[in-house]
């Protein structure tokens, strides 16, 4: 791929311009292709979709999925929903936060339900869903992350 970031954003968003309500699919595509949605992307996106910059900025910041910087190499999203809390999900979350606190390459986030409520505690490790997680299992699955 070539071109400046602005040109690439313009090219991606243009693919969605004819859709109904194109903003969310366009934002997903920008993040998917370029890794994150930059604050400065809003002006380009707004221009292509005939929206105001404020509209775009408002939408980007409303949704938890959109990030304004590149993701870390590894991600851990631990479920804090009630069903996972019933089998130790809260403790798993807290221990995951402290386990990876000193490792720059790992981001730990909370999520509220991954739809795996009968096989908790659940988490996504690098986007992959795992159920019936224990500390040992997390250690085994994240070996070599430090």
């Amino acid at each position, binding site marked *: 791929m070539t071109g400046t970031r602005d040109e690439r954003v313009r090219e991606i968003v243009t693919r969605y311009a004819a859709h109904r309500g194109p903003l969310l699919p366009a934002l997903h595509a920008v993040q998917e292709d370029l890794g994150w949605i930059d604050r400065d992307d809003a002006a380009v996106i707004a221009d292509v979709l005939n929206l105001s910059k404020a509209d775009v900025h408002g*939408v980007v910041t409303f*949704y938890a*999925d959109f990030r304004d910087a590149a993701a870390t190499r590894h991600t851990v999203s631990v479920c804090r929903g009630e*069903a996972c809390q*019933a089998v130790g999900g809260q403790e798993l979350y807290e221990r995951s936060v402290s386990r990876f606190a000193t490792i720059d390459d790992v981001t730990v986030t909370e*999520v509220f339900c991954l*739809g795996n*409520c009968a096989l908790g505690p659940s988490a996504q490790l690098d986007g992959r869903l795992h159920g019936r997680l224990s500390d040992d299992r997390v250690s085994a699955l994240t070996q070599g992350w430090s």
Partner: protein
Amino acid sequence: MTAGRTTVYVPGDAAAVSVGADDVAAALGRHPELDLVRTGSRGMLWLEPLVEVDSERGRIGLSAFAPDGTMLSAETLLSIGSAAATAPAVGEHAAYSLGVGRVEDHPFLARQTRVTCARLGIVDPTSEQDYAAHGGWVGLRRALTMAPAAVVEEVVSSGLRGRGGAGFPTGLKWRTVAGAEPGLRFVCANADEGDSGTFADRMLMEGDPFALLEGMAICAWAVGATEGFIYVRSEYPHAIAAMRKAIAAARAAGWLGTHVHGSALSFDVEVRVGAGAYICGEETSMLESLEGRRGEVRAKPPIPALSGLFGRPTVVNNVLTLATVPAILADGGERYAAHGTDRSRGTQAFQLGGNVRHGGLVELDFGITVRELVEDIGGGTRSGRPIRAVQVGGPLGAYLPAKLLDVPLTYEAMAEAGFMLGHGGVVVFDDTVDLGRMARFAMEFCAKESCGKCTPCRIGSQRGVETLDRILADRAHPGPAHAAGLSLLTDLCTTMERGSLCAMGGLTPMPVRSALTHFPEDFGLDSAATPGGRP
């Protein structure tokens, strides 16, 4: 099944994959004598990954891992597949059996009434032909021979109510849209299944996606819609992929697109992916999100049926609601209405989760009690400790104490008891749960996920967290400040209930109040007191 070859079925359902189903499929798929089919899950989730093998006796189920972690071998499956019908169902394979013989004879499934989820775990979700071979498209074929108004009345006669949580009669909603301003109309499937403890929408989309598409197409014919959207939460990547594949296959087979199978119906569907906002499961917030805006709820009226997506008449129904419609059109509304009780007609796909031994999907006629569901079917807690609380209806549902579990799971009985059925999620907690902490979590969740449009929800939940922090800090030595905190908390609950724009702020007090009423000792109160005033 080809001669000399044996077909094995391994679920591709996200829950099964979360405990190793993909590894099992990879290992079995390499064997030259096995034909591998990836299905959805039957819903016996504690047995996952549950492998099935074709035999003369039917499909025999085996857990893919023995208790010591050994993976089921292809040889074991081949020996079961080739055994005579008279051979014992499990025998030497007991290590993997966990009591499973013929899958449909398993007590967990045998007592269920599968209507909405009839094909789940049985069919190949990527195969439109398999769907057709298992009764698919029959409802749509029949609907297309009927006048649209007659299709609406068939759904009215079924008594089907919205399975997303609000329980609004589906046929009446469709009638309103059918009678609305002529022109462009939409069908939106709400697949933003964010409630903790619920996963039936996900399982259906992953295991029987064509049923949702058929339901949407029937709805489109009934109300005169031409475009459909499925709004799926981003936390469900497997469901998103399954629906996209199914849409392409349905188009190729002529069930979506212009002039569906030569009829006057032209209808197409697009998947839209959410972006991590719980509130977008609220229907007006979902419409805002589909339009490309912040997922802030709209004030009603106008109702979406009259002014919905882009201001046009719109049906918004939950996945399970729409996926039930094909069976209603195929077999008739009366037959569906014969299931259930009173004004809760039909079946409900309950989802049993949390600290439960036998968790999974349980589709039954309305009317089973919470106790029967969690004790008889669920087998009690996974930890083996006594049940202390059961939360029914997701994060906005009540915590029921062990002594109140005999309430029947119907819309009316639950409402009468001050609870709600919601989307049918049932989450079990053992006696180690701290209901004070769970009440605080309910407020914290609301504070984090509130769309921020109305003050009672946005600020009330934040104050709720702070007030509960003080109450819980004082609970060992309650004094006047503790009593004042509790009084403030019940005031806050009343304000949120009466002043919030949507169910998020309006119902967050339900778990809080029920915890306070039924578990006062967790808030530093005498267990005889009932400060919540009501559930």
